């Protein structure tokens, strides 16, 4: 197990890549052990906003000296982060959570499904999957609101990319499930991150198709390390921490096999 650490790191670069979507590279030693699907806790400097913002790792630089995060400005904390510029410091803790099981895809045909701000972790995952399966097996299906897409040009380097937009301005009109339907795509395994209705639909689809689906969940967090029990999800089996069918998203997750978690009621 790698040691978790809270540290003050340095912003290398930041830009807005779509409305309210920011793309930031951070120079940090935490990149050395970062896995696809893991996340960072990012701490605002404004002391009125104390709690960390959990943000998924989008990409790990080849030299393992920098991490990329792509996030949406959703409130005061992320608004503060969006003002950071190159050379500014940023307080982060990481690397947290379990990450996606990359080896499970060995030689298999997979879907990487991302919805909105759930798309970023799919980039590092797609990169990592190239080591265990052929590029043509990596089908990246991403859903956006409209034609103001992001990360598309990065994703196409590591897999076959299919797009859905809610307004139909680019790609399939609708959501990621509509892409599978319209194109008749097939896979042996799914990885997904996105809004809860999307994850619920993927869970149903995977159960019907009888294939595993590894979904990344989010929840409000306080500690980020498994101590506060703030970010739990109901589980099918007894959890090993509290023995009550409540797994900690920050620690046992954020990635769960869809059948293990009770989502969507």
């Amino acid at each position, binding site marked *: 197990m790698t040691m978790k650490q809270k540290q003050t790191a340095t912003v290398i670069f930041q830009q807005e890549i779509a409305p309210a979507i920011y793309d930031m590279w951070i120079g940090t030693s935490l990149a050395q052990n970062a896995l696809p699907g893991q996340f960072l806790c990012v701490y605002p400097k404004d002391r009125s906003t104390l709690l960390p913002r959990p943000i998924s790792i989008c990409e790990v630089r080849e030299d393992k000296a920098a991490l990329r995060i792509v996030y949406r400005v959703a409130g005061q904390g992320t608004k503060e982060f969006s003002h950071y510029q190159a050379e500014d410091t940023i307080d982060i803790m990481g690397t947290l959570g379990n990450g996606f099981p990359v080896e499970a895809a060995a030689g298999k045909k997979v879907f990487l499904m991302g919805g909105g701000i759930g798309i970023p972790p799919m980039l590092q995952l797609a990169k990592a999957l190239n080591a265990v399966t052929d590029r043509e097996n990596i089908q990246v299906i991403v859903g956006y609101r409209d034609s103001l897409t992001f990360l598309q040009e990065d994703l196409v380097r590591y897999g076959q990319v299919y797009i859905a937009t809610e307004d139909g301005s680019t790609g399939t009109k609708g959501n990621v499930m509509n892409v599978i339907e319209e194109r008749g795509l097939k896979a042996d395994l799914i990885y997904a991150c996105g809004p809860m209705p999307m994850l619920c639909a993927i869970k149903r689809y995977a159960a019907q198709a009888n294939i595993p689906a590894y979904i990344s969940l989010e929840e409000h967090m306080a500690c980020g390390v498994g101590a506060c029990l703030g970010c739990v999800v109901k589980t099918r089996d007894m959890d090993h921490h509290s023995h*009550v069918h409540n797994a900690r998203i920050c620690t046992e997750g954020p990635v769960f096999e869809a059948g293990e978690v009770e989502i969507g009621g």
Partner: protein
Amino acid sequence: MNTQTIIAGITFKNPVMTASGTFGSGMEYSEFVDLNQLGAVVTKGVANVPWPGNPTPRVAEVYGGMLNAIGLQNPGIDVFMERDIPFLKQYNTKIIVNVCGKTVEDYVEVVEKLGDEPAVSMLEINVSCPNVKEGAIAFGQKADALSHITKEVKKHAKQPIIMKLSPNVTDIGEMAKAAEAAGADALSLINTLTGMKIDIHRRKFAIANKTGGMSGPAIKPIAVRMVYQAAHAVQIPIIGMGGIATAEDAIEFILAGASAVSVGAMNFVNPYTTVEVVKGIEAYMEQYHVEKLADLIGAVEG
């Protein structure tokens, strides 16, 4: 320099502890801090059986602090004694177990089981969690109920007991006196203040439980005031907590009358807080030529 503090005859190497519920049983934070450097680890509340806790969202941020309504999710005393106590025993720090329950019998069952474990130095009786409907706070908001639970627990406890008081009362001094008269060996305060946050865009409560306990630096002045009032009401020692982020904060509590202090919500913000507070207290004592910590307890003038 002597940073030791004595509570109910037990000597702690320094006055810095962890506030129950913010530090698990130390396992998660042992990756960040050397638990050997803490005066004590106060565990998350443990009941006689596993408790699932409340629905999510369980936490929300508020100005200078947070709300939580975890609802005391815990694995129950049996798993706790098999797993958490052996983990903590590896360290040279005192173990204080926070005990919760829905009925007097629940508390007594846990207290009796812990009586067989000499590694546990003290028991902290949680009668002040605002986030569970039965038990807990029902015992902590009326002086006669507090007196009753204190007496019952005291009858069965082998270790000294700390009654953890709620700030959600009219007169903290009266509650402190009731606990002392019923046999409490020490008091800890404050637990969280009941609060509420509404998401105006979704027109929903930020926390599924609707109300949550507020903690963090924003509540510190209230906590310092209550520790001061309780310290003037009773003779038994007090463990002070509520928004401690720095050694300076901790020293305020000690000057107000606390024999020890606990770091709570700030563990979430800076996992190194506890150890930084230990070092900062030492630096303060050196700066002001304070030979022993005991000289600072309740030393506020005027």
